[in-house]
């Protein structure tokens, strides 16, 4: 099996190298053929691995490929841990990636950087697989940073645009702030286990939970496991864009749409969710961290949803929706319902990739116009895009029976059962979030596909459905967006799919409690229709219909009345403003003070050149003594002689 894992990992890397370094020789068709083949191989073999481990029930694999470094009794390896969680991630990543590869043929058709683009997304697939298949923290961190690198390269893909090259630097730096915590967490693991293998860390977690550090003073103590877990979670906050490290994700929309779907919706941004689920044997023992996760996730889920309400850029609406949904997943993790978080991650990967690609299809049709105020009525021009987008929207708001319904309802009910401090706030946030989600989602659907046609004549004349390479992935993603929840909720949430993989303490096990009332997906849907969550969503859609189709004048009136609130939302709660004016500018100011004040004035000016000047001045003074006049020397000699005599006289 090891060879198969290796093939899954290396096929996209090989394809990426071919398309990237030899793009000129293989040409455009060569580049997309080789990369699509590479990802297809990965996907097919992932299916095989799924069959092997899940359907045939073979035990998980945990082993090394090669030793990266060995010193001081520490062995760092590149290796694989392949179990149910890994297989699920591998399937999601390779499937969505394959869809995006095909879609890219259409979307990037006219772009000069065609080969480069295919090379990057294949490199991304490799990096993401490296991350999810890891069996140790080193490789996790390597994959973690490499996906960040590819994200950087792809956000700045159109490197001439000032906004793009600002956004990619911002994305990398904000992620580095997260990684700062992440690496400290990893160092903490090493502190206790002298190893970076997951298995060693998991085994040691209960013992670490009893250790206390004195970090700030000798009077205060901090739980060691909490420090490690919070550190790791700060990494997740960067990658999975949780408040306040979420600021990079909306700006990442500067990149081409296919990567918004692949990296900034379906896969990379869920790496943080995956990581926490993977580390459940550690996080379970630190309730403080779980509370922290709950509060951060809930805040992200609700408040980022609000921002989706005021944006007019179709991609940014979907981006804020992604932020909000990542908040939902995070809340599930905080409530110890790791399986629910991962389950939502999976369904979300399908329907959010679908929504992004549908938005991309709209953007192609509109000749790269992204402002929804200049769209409307596109339903009849883009029928396939419309219907698939509608499916994605219904899945997103949790319409009963769609995949998003199962994952979101399961998640909310799990939070309702949770007794971890902060669960009350989280429940409120995710419930309110349901209404907000429905509102902004259908605001987008209505503004884009329904109502008056607001585009100019020229654009209208050229409107037509996208080519098959674009619509085929939409259809293929729409299918799991509808059905996958129905078929998988039983085993994933309430069955034993994750039994040996995700660890939950009995007193935290909210999913087990829900499982007692589990009577199959049909009953779950029936129950869901009667629950308040469904009515909140319905109210959201109705409100959107009323505000954006029936009475489009009302939103403007509301905006005019609530100028303060509106300004707060339009400025995205002033996070960017604060970061740019205080953090970034502050760092530069300190740099300038240290440089000009410290290096130049104090060290160079006063000490280095100063000492040179003192030597020069002394020499200048002493030089006068050596005037060259004989009578000066004679005079000095007489004085000296007299002084010497006087001294001798006085001494005797």
């Amino acid at each position, binding site marked *: 099996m090891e060879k198969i894992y290796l093939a899954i990992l290396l096929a996209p890397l090989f394809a990426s190298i071919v398309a990237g370094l030899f793009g000129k020789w293989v040409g455009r068709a060569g580049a997309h053929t080789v990369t699509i083949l590479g990802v297809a191989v990965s996907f097919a073999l992932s299916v095989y691995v799924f069959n092997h481990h899940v359907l045939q029930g073979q035990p998980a694999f945990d082993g090394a490929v090669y030793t990266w470094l*060995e*010193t*001081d009794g520490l062995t760092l390896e590149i290796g694989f841990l392949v179990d149910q969680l890994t297989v699920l991630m591998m399937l999601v990543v390779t499937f969505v990636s394959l869809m995006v590869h095909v879609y890219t043929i259409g979307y990037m058709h006219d772009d000069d950087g065609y080969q480069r683009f295919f090379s990057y997304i294949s490199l991304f697939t490799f990096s993401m697989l490296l991350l999810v298949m890891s069996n140790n923290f080193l490789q996790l961190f390597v994959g973690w*940073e490499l996906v960040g690198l590819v994200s950087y390269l792809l956000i700045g893909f159109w490197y001439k645009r000032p906004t793009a090259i600002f956004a990619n*630097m911002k994305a*990398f730096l904000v992620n580095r702030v997260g990684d700062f915590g992440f690496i*400290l967490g990893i160092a903490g693991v090493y502190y206790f286990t002298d190893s970076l293998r997951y298995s060693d860390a998991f085994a040691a977690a209960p013992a670490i939970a009893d250790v206390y550090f004195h970090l700030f003073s000798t009077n205060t103590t901090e739980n060691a496991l909490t420090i490690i877990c919070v550190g790791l979670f700060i990494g997740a906050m960067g990658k999975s864009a949780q408040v306040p490290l979420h600021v990079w994700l909306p700006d990442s929309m500067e990149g081409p749409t296919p990567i918004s779907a692949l990296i900034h919706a379906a896969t990379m941004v869920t790496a943080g969710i995956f990581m926490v689920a993977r580390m459940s044997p550690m996080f379970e023992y630190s309730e403080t961290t779980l509370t922290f996760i709950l509060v951060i996730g809930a805040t992200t889920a609700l408040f980022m949803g609000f921002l989706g309400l005021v944006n007019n850029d179709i991609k940014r609406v979907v981006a804020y929706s992604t932020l909000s949904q990542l908040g939902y997943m995070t809340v599930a993790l905080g409530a110890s319902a790791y399986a629910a978080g991962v389950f939502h991650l999976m369904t979300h990967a399908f329907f959010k990739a679908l929504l992004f690609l549908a938005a991309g299809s709209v953007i192609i049709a509109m000749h790269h116009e992204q402002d929804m105020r200049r769209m409307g009525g596109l339903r009849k021009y883009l029928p396939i895009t419309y219907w698939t987008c509608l499916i994605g929207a219904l899945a997103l708001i949790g319409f009963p029976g769609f995949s998003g319904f199962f994952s979101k309802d399961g998640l909310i009910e799990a939070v309702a059962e949770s007794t971890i401090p902060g669960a009350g706030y989280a429940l409120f946030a995710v419930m309110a979030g349901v209404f907000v989600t429905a509102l902004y989602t259908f605001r987008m659907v209505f503004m884009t596909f329904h109502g008056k046609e607001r585009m100019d004549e020229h654009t209208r004349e050229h409107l037509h459905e996208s080519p098959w390479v674009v619509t085929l992935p939409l259809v293929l993603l729409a299918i799991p967006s509808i059905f996958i929840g129905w078929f998988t909720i039983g085993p994933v949430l309430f069955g034993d799919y994750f039994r040996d993989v995700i660890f939950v303490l009995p007193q935290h096990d909210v999913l087990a409690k829900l499982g007692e009332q589990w009577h199959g997906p049909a009953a779950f849907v029936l129950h869901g229709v009667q629950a308040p969550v469904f009515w909140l969503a319905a109210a959201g859609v109705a409100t959107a219909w009323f505000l954006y189709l029936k009475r489009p004048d009302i939103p403007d009136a509301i905006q005019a009345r609530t100028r303060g609130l509106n300004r707060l939302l339009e400025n995205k709660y002033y996070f960017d403003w604060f970061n740019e004016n205080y953090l970034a500018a502050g760092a530069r100011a300190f740099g300038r003070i240290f*440089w000009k004040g410290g290096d130049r004035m104090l*060290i160079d000016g006063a000490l280095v050149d100063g000492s040179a000047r003192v030597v020069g001045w002394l020499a200048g003074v002493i030089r006068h003594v050596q005037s060259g006049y004989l009578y000066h020397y004679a005079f000095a000699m007489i004085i000296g002689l007299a002084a010497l005599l006087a001294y001798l006289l006085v001494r005797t």
Partner: protein
Amino acid sequence: MNNWPLLSILVWLPIVGGIAVMLLGDARAALGRWLALGVTVLAFVLSVPLYTGFDSTTAAMQFVERLPWIPALNSDYHLGVDGISLPLILLTTFTTVLVVIAGWSVIEKRPSQYFAAFLIMEGLMVGVFAALDALLFYVFWEAMLIPMFIIIGVWGGVRRVYATIKFFLYTFLGSVFMLVAFVYMYLKTGTYELSAFYQLPLTLTEQVLIFLAFFAAFAVKVPMFPVHTWLPDAHVEAPTGGSVILAAIMLKMGGYGFLRFSLPITPDASRELDWLVIALSLVAVVYIGLVALVQQDMKKLIAYSSIAHMGFVTLGCFLAYDIYANTGATTGAVLGLQGAMVQMISHGLVSGALFFCIGVLYDRLHTREIGAYGGVINTMPVFGAFMVLFAMANAGLPGTSGFVGEFMVIVAAFKANFWYAFFAAVTLILGAAYTLWLVKRVVFGEVANEGVAALKDLNRREFLVLAILAVGVLALGIWPKPLTDVMEPTLQQTLTLMSASKL
């Protein structure tokens, strides 16, 4: 080949070759260039058997050569390599080849003397790393300053006189104290033999004084805050090749000195004063990182970045005492030492590559101002790709060599003290900030001006140099084990020496 005096060859072949190149004169500069290339390639090829023939199961000195040198002073011509010096010698012979290729057609003023200076310097630098006799070490250490002094002073920029004098006085002043310490220990042992110094019992006061004398020499070379200000000036004025050697190899002599002299000879003083080194290392990471952020001159920026990166070297070297105090065991100490060494080798490749990159731009537009560039990737796509790769390595991206040492030191630092790791990890943010901002302003964006619009992409010679460095940077990042395996026994022994009290 194990019977050959390989180390002597590596010291004297470049020196003799350099003199020959100089004698050929500028009239036969073309021939001189080829001779210089031949000599450096030969030196590199001859340094490979050092690695392949190296026994990495022992900490003992290998390829040892010993002849009486100054019998009156009981000083020997004593050379040898162990796990610490071997990688640094390989780095020296490797980098010098690239420097010769990089200077191939760029140097118009007195080309043969230029190449001769680098060849002579190569021999002297190998001598520094191979010398096992303190007096011999001192001679190589000081002699090496002369060619560098000439390189900056003759082929340097506008303020080269200020820079050379500053460079020379700074480094020379530091070294003099080291000589005093050597003489003191000679008076006690009657020999300049390094291993005798290791065994010499010293009181704490003696150790502290010797430690500070060494510190004056090595801290200036590294350079550590606050004696670092000569480096940005020297870099800015030096020609590309000079900057490369300065960054890639000369700075390493400071770190080498700490590992070879300070820690084993004055273990108790190192324990007493480790707080000083650690504090200054962390200042280098944070303070210098912020200073690097606001530089307008590309070379200055990379020079400051070098100082910040070298902070990891000194930090990694001095972690052992606090690790023992904090955890009651020394696990993690060798990880820190390894991290320091890997960081030195990696920094040699990465900063060398970045100075090459800046040289490529400087050769075309004759300015180092960041503001004079912008959108370079439009006209130089291949160059842009290399620049982004090396910038990422500088920012410590996993998969490149830049990650390995930083990761090891940060992880080891946590064992000593959470806050050491905390401040060291700030480099993740600052390092990325100053490097990527540089890339954003220089490489990306619309074509900024006519100068950039007229740029020609890399020629074959430049491509070769950068490609070789890229392979090195990636290879070390993907599989550092061959490097760390060689160093392991020696660093274990260093830990033993630095942990054994002399009181």
